């Protein structure tokens, strides 16, 4: 297993600058996930790690080894492609053995590893089939198997689950994590999918427009997004953003917005960034609200709740999503189904946590942790 260190990596395709100085660090044996919107350069970064593209500038190290200009086969990596890219003319067994054969591994050893991997992935009974005789999920597992038997120092995954249906996806997701834990292999995994990102990652890198916006443990990143972009990208439904102005309120702070919105909040953790009269963006996740109740005490204290005029209610059984307007912006709130909110009602909400972002730069006002 190897650690991965990428320093100030640039990639241009002709005149288009795709990666603009990416630095990431994946410790040995960790599972790193790259997320970001479509076209932000995730696959490009992965292909650079694989050696399928050439870096325009910057370096890539596996442990202490500079691999920046090495060919893929000199890097000791394995990659699982979104399309699986199985060899259509080879049986499952031969697909898995291909890389080992090229490396002149002993036939007995090849056989042993293929057996082991296929047992791990439940492919034993499919070994003599051709890829065209397999279902999508089976193909995906063969692609995994082909990577596993190689025992590489680094696994690369490019959206390996995106061609599977939802049920299969969650099942294979668990398998992938299991395999990773078993092999303790360093992995870099590209995905669009929030759930995959949150559940699989030891460390997550949020990419946007060719730069890393934030890196860290997924829960940390979720709880303390460093930028408005990260905040909006992680979490579903997405975080609500409301334009507000900061003001002092006795010992505390208040964020005041349109429609008589006044949110008092605990300044702890925000000490440096708060300036009275500053125009900022208030961020509230749909999951971080509840119905205001006079009797309860909140970290964001207020004598009355923030009024949400509900225009649509999506009832999902145990929970409901109330869509409406709050503080002049559209707003989604997750509420208990028991609350029985109706269309047209105005409800008062209490915010359990608030996020504040600089209106211009989008940077979080939170103090560094």
């Amino acid at each position, binding site marked *: 297993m190897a650690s991965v260190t990428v320093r100030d990596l640039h990639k241009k395709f002709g005149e288009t600058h795709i990666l603009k100085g990416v630095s990431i660090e994946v410790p040995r044996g960790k599972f790193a996930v790259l997320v970001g919107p479509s076209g932000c350069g995730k696959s490009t970064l992965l292909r650079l790690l694989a050696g*399928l593209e050439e870096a325009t500038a910057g370096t890539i190290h596996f442990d202490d080894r500079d691999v920046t200009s090495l060919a893929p*086969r000199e890097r000791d990596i394995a990659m699982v*492609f979104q399309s699986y890219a*199985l060899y259509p003319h080879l049986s499952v067994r031969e697909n898995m053995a291909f*890389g080992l054969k*090229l490396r002149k591994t002993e036939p007995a050893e090849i056989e042993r590893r293929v057996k082991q991997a296929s047992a791990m992935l439940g492919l034993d009974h499919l070994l003599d089939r051709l890829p065209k005789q397999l279902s999508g999920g089976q193909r995906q597992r063969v692609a995994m198997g082909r990577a596993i038997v190689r025992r590489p120092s680094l696994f690369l995954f490019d959206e390996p689950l995106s061609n599977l249906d939802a049920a299969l996806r969650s099942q294979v997701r668990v398998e992938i994590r299991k395999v990773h834990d078993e092999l303790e292999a360093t992995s870099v995994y590209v995905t669009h999918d929030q759930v995959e990102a949150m559940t699989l990652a030891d460390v997550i890198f949020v990419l946007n427009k060719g730069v890393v916006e934030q890196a860290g443990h997924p829960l940390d990143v979720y709880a303390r997004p460093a930028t408005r972009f990260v905040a909006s990208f992680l979490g579903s439904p997405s975080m609500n953003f409301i334009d507000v102005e900061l003001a002092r309120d006795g010992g505390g702070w208040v964020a005041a917005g349109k429609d008589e919105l006044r949110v008092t909040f605990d300044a702890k953790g925000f000490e440096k960034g708060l300036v009275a009269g500053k125009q900022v963006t208030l961020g509230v996740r749909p999951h971080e609200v509840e119905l205001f109740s006079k009797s309860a005490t909140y970290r964001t204290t207020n004598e009355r709740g923030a009024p949400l005029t509900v225009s649509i209610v999506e009832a999902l059984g145990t929970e409901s999503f109330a869509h409406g307007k709050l503080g002049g912006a559209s707003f989604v709130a997750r509420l208990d189904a028991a609350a029985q909110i109706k269309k047209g009602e105005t409800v008062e909400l209490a915010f359990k946590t608030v996020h504040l972002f600089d209106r211009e730069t989008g940077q979080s006002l939170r103090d560094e942790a």
Partner: protein
Amino acid sequence: MLSVPRNTPFIKKVWLWAVTFFIATFVYPTLVYANPIRLWHAYRGDEEKALLEIIKTFPGGKIETLALPADALDSKLASASLVGEGPDVFIAEHHHLGEYKARSIVGKVGDAFEGEGAFIVPAVRAVTDGDGVWGVPLSPKCMALFVNDDLAKTPADFEAIGELTGKLPQGVFPLVYEARNLYAHAPIFGAFGGELLGKNDQWSFIGTEAETSLNLARTFIAKGAVPDDANYNILKELFKAGKAAFVISGPWLAADLSDAKDLRYHIEVLPNIRGAGQPMRPLLTVESAMLTKQGAEKPEARALAKWLASREAAQVRARLAKTLTARSDVSIADGDPMLRVFSEQAKVAIPMPASRAMQAVWDPANRAISKVIRGEAPPDVALAEAKRRYDTVRRPPPDAASPTPFLIVIGGILLVLVLYWVRGAKKGDFTGEVKRSLPAYAYVIHSVVAVGLLVIAPLTVGAATAFFSGNLFGDTSSRRFVGLANFIDILTAQGGALLTTGSFYVVLLVTLLWTFLNLFFHVTIGVSLALLLSKPALKLKAFYRVLLIVPWAVPSYITALVWKGMFDRQFGAVTGLILGLNDLFGFHMEPISWFARFSTAFTANVSTNVWLGFPVMMVVTLGALTAVPQDVLEAAEVDGATRWQRLWRVTLPMIRPTLAPSVTLGGIWTFNMFNVVFLVSGGDPDGTTDILVSEAYRWAFTREAKYGYAAAYSVLIFLMLFGFTRWDEWRKKRADDRDRAVRAKEAAA
């Protein structure tokens, strides 16, 4: 004319129109053009003008002329006389008479022939045989000696020409003639008193005279007095360029020299041969007016034939077309020395045998001459072999076999089929089913009929021919059923050694080698080029692609002829290249006689066909390559495959299924690639580079029209290819079955 009266009832009007139409289209023309005399000929230019002039003054009635291309006249005559649409009179060279007689096309000329005194002796001999006179001689043609006045004077004799060797400017041949051709060799043979055919059509280009004549030719070649591979074009170009002191050729050369203004030459009668003490005697062909069977019975047609050969006509021809006459009583104008020389020459010429057997003489004789002058075999051996070949071709047809066993077998098969069908019909609601599927039949009936007529019927007739000997159509008097005799003959090499040149097995081996080598190069070159062209980094890709498809776009016979030209020993590009290299690097490579040895001739054929064939493979591969996904190649790269391993272990196996049908098809095409073999090497040397189809062609068209034999060859070819495709299918199916079995086993587990 007829007019339609008004106020007639409608029905009557229709009737009237119908009758008018009938008369106008069918009756009227026949009345007006009642029985004109039909005259077919192959003249063009001045000769045609002369003919029309002659006809204009013919007193005996209306004439309808039809000009045909020279090589179409024969076949058109044969087919038209079948349906009674043939001409009454036609003009052709006398040596076809044997063929025409055998096919019952010609009749005796009777009173169209003015009498022996009116024509020169050889001309009369040419059109006469034991039965009578079969044509009216019009114009004799033979070869004479062309002398370049700047290089030489009248030679004392033939040998004196050879003695000029080394005394002429660098690069000038003392003599050029088509040394490998019997027609051009015949004057030498004739001087020694030889005849080409014996009394009963037996081979007589053998024995002391023949050997002496060949030895003489060989000495000329050996000392470089004569180029060994001149054809008519080479001869013409050498003479025009002043590179030949003498050439032996016919009046057609004089016509072709008209544009060589600087060339000073004259024509002379061929000299004596010292060793024989006799003049050289060229072969004489006599253009004659012939009468078809129907024409021979019409007095006015006979009158026309007589008129065409008349004194007046001869004068018109001499005036307008400078044509020599076969008449003995027409003096040649003093102003035309050329006509006078040819007329003198004709008097000592030997008429070309008109017998049908002559067709079988050319090929073996030419081969024997080639062998001797190239020093590959002594004359006696080469001539004995030629005689053997001739005898093989002239063998009497196999004995008639009783068709009964065949009819029984075929009848049995039909019976089984009928029984099978009847049983099917009995089961269930057969008529109902037929009725229900009638509309479906309506949709396919036209294509069934078309395929039946255009594919199945000819195939069946062709295959059936293999069981007969003689003419299947036209004059069928020689036709007889011979059962499997043709096949047995082929498969037992006519009782000779199984592995001699030209035996079925040797030709099959050559064909297989030919097919294999071609396919190998088609695939390797095609695939390599496709791989290069599919490189994304390649600039000007579209341009190269078009360029590489060009060999395919040019009609193959043109390419074949161009390549044959390139391999020419004297003037070919390859020789040019060799000479160029010699000049540049001081090498001493000899120009190669490509068609003198099997290995080089075969190489020339293969190169030509490879050139023709690789573009298809390239295009197919280019298509197949687009189906190889980039990410699979990248997966292999990540898996550790080098560029080479990616090619061998991923790309090639992946395009194989797409390529396989093209390879199979290409194999079949190559197996039957007649054009290239026929046009480039033409089987040279000595028939060794012939493949099965070209061999079949030779049996049908150059060896006495042995159609049954040729058809048997074709049937064998068909069976082999059919067997091959079946085997290919079976192999694929077996692989599929195995596949399915694997899955079934898993499903069960």
